């Protein structure tokens, strides 16, 4: 009985994965195969000494969508990057350009001909990490915060920390203060197997989450406050691009 139930829970994921595989040869691999293989550019970029001036120059490309402040769009179409851990930015950027994370909108901008090699990844990651964060991120409806808090405590704390700060050395991202709709979309893609570089432990952990659970916990996360010293003032404009 229990195994039938488990199968029923997994079935939609498998159906999605199967559809993706048929439509798309690139996706034919195990959805979680790309989690932190490391190596290549990721390792190289992690060990290079960042150059701030080049970071500023490279980031200008990113600013077209993520804005000069790195604050993204409160509707969640583009995430906030400011204050994200350097390791996380390096990993995600390397993953996107290695086609390990499916992101057709960003892909062309992650290419070496757009931003440069491993050194540029190191430079821009360091630059992004030190940008002060958006003090007014997009948040959810605020109707289910108690449920969200409980779910967070039970499922997320071990990796993302007690209020969403993440663990840099393990590539676990800072999620506190991220735009709610961006969090929703990524969570859903991770749960449903669409985000290929998701951590398999997380995929397992959140399989039982209903859409209501997801909304509640993401709402809670979007409202978690980063430490005051990494948050910008409302209306701050990045002086590097004035």
């Amino acid at each position, binding site marked *: 009985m229990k195994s039938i139930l488990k199968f029923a829970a997994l079935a939609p994921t498998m159906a999605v994965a199967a559809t993706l595989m048929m439509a798309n040869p690139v996706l034919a691999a195990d959805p979680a195969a790309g989690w932190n293989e490391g190596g290549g550019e990721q390792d190289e970029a992690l060990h290079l000494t960042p150059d701030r001036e080049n970071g500023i120059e490279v980031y200008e490309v990113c600013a077209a969508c993520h804005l000069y402040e790195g604050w993204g769009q409160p*509707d*969640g*179409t583009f995430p906030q990057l400011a204050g994200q851990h350097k390791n996380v930015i390096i990993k995600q950027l390397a993953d996107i350009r290695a086609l390990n994370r499916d992101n*057709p*909108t960003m892909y*062309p901008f992650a290419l070496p001909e757009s931003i440069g090699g491993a050194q540029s990844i190191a430079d821009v990651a360091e630059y992004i990490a030190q940008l002060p964060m958006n003090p007014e991120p997009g948040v959810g409806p605020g109707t289910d915060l108690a449920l969200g808090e409980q779910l967070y405590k039970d499922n997320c704390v071990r990796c993302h920390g007690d209020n969403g700060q993440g663990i840099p050395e393990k590539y676990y991202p800072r999620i506190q203060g991220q735009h709610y709709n961006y969090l929703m979309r990524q969570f859903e893609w991770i749960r449903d197997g669409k985000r290929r570089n998701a951590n398999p432990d997380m995929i397992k952990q959140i399989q039982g989450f209903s859409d209501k659970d997801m909304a509640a916990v993401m709402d809670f996360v979007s409202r978690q406050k980063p430490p005051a010293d990494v948050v910008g003032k409302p209306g701050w404009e990045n002086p590097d691009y004035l």
Partner: protein
Amino acid sequence: MKKTLLKSVTILTGAVLSFAVLSAPAFAAEKKKRDPGKKLYMTKTCMACHGKNGAKAMLEYPNLAGQDEKYMINQINYILSGKRLGSHDATGNPRSQGMQGALISAKDNTPRISKDEIKQIAKWLAKQKPADLKPPKTPLDPASVAAGEKLFKSKCKACHGKEGKKPLKGNPYVAGQKRAYLFTQMQDIKSKARKSPKSVAMYGIVKKMTDEQFGNLADYLSQVDRNAGK
């Protein structure tokens, strides 16, 4: 006391002077207002891929400067609604997916650009000077260019106009467009990956054409200069 006063007078004079110097061009710039279409082109992230004034598109994306206004409005709407998909790009997604990702809101999966804003952008882009020709990375084969010109005259001219420079309204200018873009689009129309009404109208024409012929046409058209003689 006196010294401090003197110092502050100096600073004040300096401040007034630099204000006068700085504000002169600022006032001049204020008179000339930025076109609302241009502003939207920048803030809605179009510029990231299609480049400055629509004339410096990156990678294989099309230049849009001087493109037909009605054609652009239709294509943007088709891309947002999923009616124009195209073949798969390097990420394994339909070519239009990247643009959708930038313009469809994560909030409710509806466009974060209004119909009116689309019109303003298209109107502004249509007025921009077409991109100057870029010499090809490897010289084109003159025989291929000549074959392309001949094909164009017999198969394409009726709708796209003489030398691809005078399309019927609602059809695109193809003269001076990037070679790689032209080639892919012809392939996509032949494979029916592009399904919008104007593409359907081309199905019969491209049905029996080969990749070699598409190459001839792309070679020829990519080197027709829309700015020549202007």
